[in-house]
């Protein structure tokens, strides 16, 4: 007798399942984002491709210390530092030391963000840029110019390492979350 | 005329694929050629007015029996081991015997029977005729056949199950 009871119970379970599906078919809101037209909103600490930040005078913050390159687990960052005696107005950087060469191989990068954490001057940060497809591998190599261009494009958007650098926008980016550290450098206008 | 064309085509298919079945070294290919033979025989049944048997032949032979054969061939993975070729003398003897049998059969059919002179009975055999014959005249053999199937089923289960 229990076998028949089981069979009836199982058949009812199938019907119940069909009912659940039907409920979803009839009134569940669609969650699809129509991607190219409608863009997904990234989390405020999303780790996209890097940016090299500039200060309020348009000077680079990077001092070419290569701490980012040392900490990088996939060894995709190459930095050559240099020093200059030129007066502050003529310098590329805010400091006497600057990066002569700064290259990130985005094809090797695993977007862990260690480099951003290692940066002593908060020069390196990440952007919400996730569309990194390229037809040529060499286009995945970002030099200093590209990274600065990234900064100009994404400076007013949140990204890993930058969210505490723009206190005015903090509320909008973080919502309830509090920034993890105080800003060591003032906000930057793009 | 239509029947002759059908007859010749079907004979070619049936005999050709039966030969391929016997000569093919790969068991799966042999099984497929046999399927083709069975389908040709099924269409023969249709030509001969045995429509029910046409369907029964496809369902039982090609749909069940040959699928079982294929299943076993795949299960045993037979193409790994090469089947030893029958030795020359035995092969010659087998072919000779087969031809002798064919000669005997054909001579017996051609010389000792009188079908060609016998008139065909008009009107085909309908499904109703078949059913009446089966459940009236042949009821006891029919019941025996069902018992045979039951015994075969039990036998197959008993043979194939693993001793624990």
């Amino acid at each position, binding site marked *: 007798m229990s076998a028949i009871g089981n*069979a009836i119970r199982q058949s009812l379970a*199938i019907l119940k*399942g*069909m009912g*659940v*599906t*039907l409920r*979803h*078919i009839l009134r*569940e*809101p*669609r*969650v*699809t984002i*129509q991607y190219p037209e409608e863009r997904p909103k990234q989390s405020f600490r999303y780790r996209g491709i890097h940016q090299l930040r500039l200060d309020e005078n348009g000077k680079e913050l990077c001092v070419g210390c290569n701490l980012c390159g040392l900490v990088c687990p996939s060894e995709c960052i190459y930095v050559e530092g240099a020093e200059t005696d030129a007066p502050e107005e003529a310098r590329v950087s805010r400091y006497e030391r600057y990066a002569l060469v700064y290259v990130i191989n985005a094809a090797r990068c695993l977007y862990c963000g260690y480099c951003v954490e290692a940066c002593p001057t908060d020069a390196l940060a990440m952007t919400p840029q996730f569309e990194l497809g390229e037809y040529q591998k060499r286009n995945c190599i970002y030099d200093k110019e590209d990274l600065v261009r990234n900064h100009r494009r994404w400076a007013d958007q949140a990204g890993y390492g930058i969210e505490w650098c723009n206190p005015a926008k903090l509320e909008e980016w973080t919502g309830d979350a509090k920034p993890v550290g105080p800003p060591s450098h003032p906000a930057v206008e793009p | 005329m239509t029947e002759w064309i059908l007859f010749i085509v079907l004979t070619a298919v049936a005999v050709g694929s039966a030969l391929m079945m016997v000569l093919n070294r*790969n068991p*799966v*290919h042999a099984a*497929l050629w046999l*399927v083709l033979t069975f389908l040709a025989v099924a269409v023969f049944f249709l030509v001969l007015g045995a*429509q*029910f048997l*046409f*369907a*029964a032949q*496809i*369902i039982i032979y*090609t*749909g*069940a029996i040959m*699928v*079982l054969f*294929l*299943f076993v061939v*795949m*299960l045993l993975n037979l193409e790994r081991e090469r089947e030893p070729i029958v030795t020359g003398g035995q092969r010659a003897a087998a072919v000779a015997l087969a031809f002798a049998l064919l000669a005997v059969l054909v001579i017996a059919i051609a010389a000792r029977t009188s079908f060609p002179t016998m008139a065909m009975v008009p009107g085909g055999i*309908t*499904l109703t005729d078949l059913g009446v014959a089966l459940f009236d005249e042949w009821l006891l053999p029919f019941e025996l056949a069902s018992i045979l199937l039951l015994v075969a089923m039990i036998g197959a289960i008993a043979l194939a199950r693993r001793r624990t």
Partner: protein
Amino acid sequence: MEYLIMTIKAVVVFAVVAGSMPFIVWAERKVMADAQARIGPNRVGPYGILQSFADALKLMFKEDVTPRQVDKPIYFLAPVLAMIPALTAFAVVPYGSPEVTVYGVPIFYVTDPKQVGVLWVFAVTTLSVYGVVLAGWASNNKWSLLGALRSAAQMISYEVALGLAILGVVLGSGSLSLIDIVEKQAVPRAFGIPGIWLFAQPVAFLLFFTASLAETNRTPFDLPEAESELVAGFHTEYSSFKFAMFFMAEYINVLTVSAVVATLFLGGWLGPGVGQFPLLGVVYFALKTAALIYLIMWLRATLPRFRYDQLMRFAWKVLLPLGLANVFITALWVGLRGGT
């Protein structure tokens, strides 16, 4: 002349069946998307209705890979063998009232073999196993072979239930012709219940529907291609157009199964007003078929796949006894009423 007319009708039916396949694929993707709170295809054409054509085009131009270790003749034969049974089953299905004639020729069925009818559908269904089994074997790939073996065992097991379910209807109708079976359903039963076999033979309906889902490898019986355990099962090694043929075969099978169930159990072309306007019959038939297709898709969106031992147990310990009991009771009923 008779054969010529039959050929023309067959070609037209073939064109309609094959032509509706892309829309069934589209419908399935939309239904699945609905159930999963997605939108589904919406780029190619209005509501994405041309998506399947785009996919077909893409598949045609893809590289046709033939792995080196395959058994070539069978490898090429298998997709064709998968397609043929799906299409040929439609030969005996009446898709409209046979009263509609053009120049005295009834146009709404291809042929009506009085002595074979349902058996032809059954025979063709049993043949559909070959495409899957041979594809799996010829690929020379362990996943494909496992899919093929599962499929062979599954189809042989569910054929039994399928046959027993058909027997119930055939016993009640007293004919193997699908047209006779439909016409038998035109007479209402007691208390004004419509005469369709769905009400008189509910067990047979459930059995037939379940078994035909298993025969056509639809979810929840899609073990031969269980992608989560067997890569893609029997069609792992198939690419390009040969894969497209398996894909087409599956969806034509869905259409065929729905059409056969609609004919056997839902009264085919019958419906209110068909007596005055016989042309309406096609509409009713199409609606019933579409409803069954929707049901199949709905089931796919709902049910998880069976485990292999559950599948076999279900066939032999649930469906077979149910089918036997149904045939027994139907035979008793027909016998007591003194024939059909």
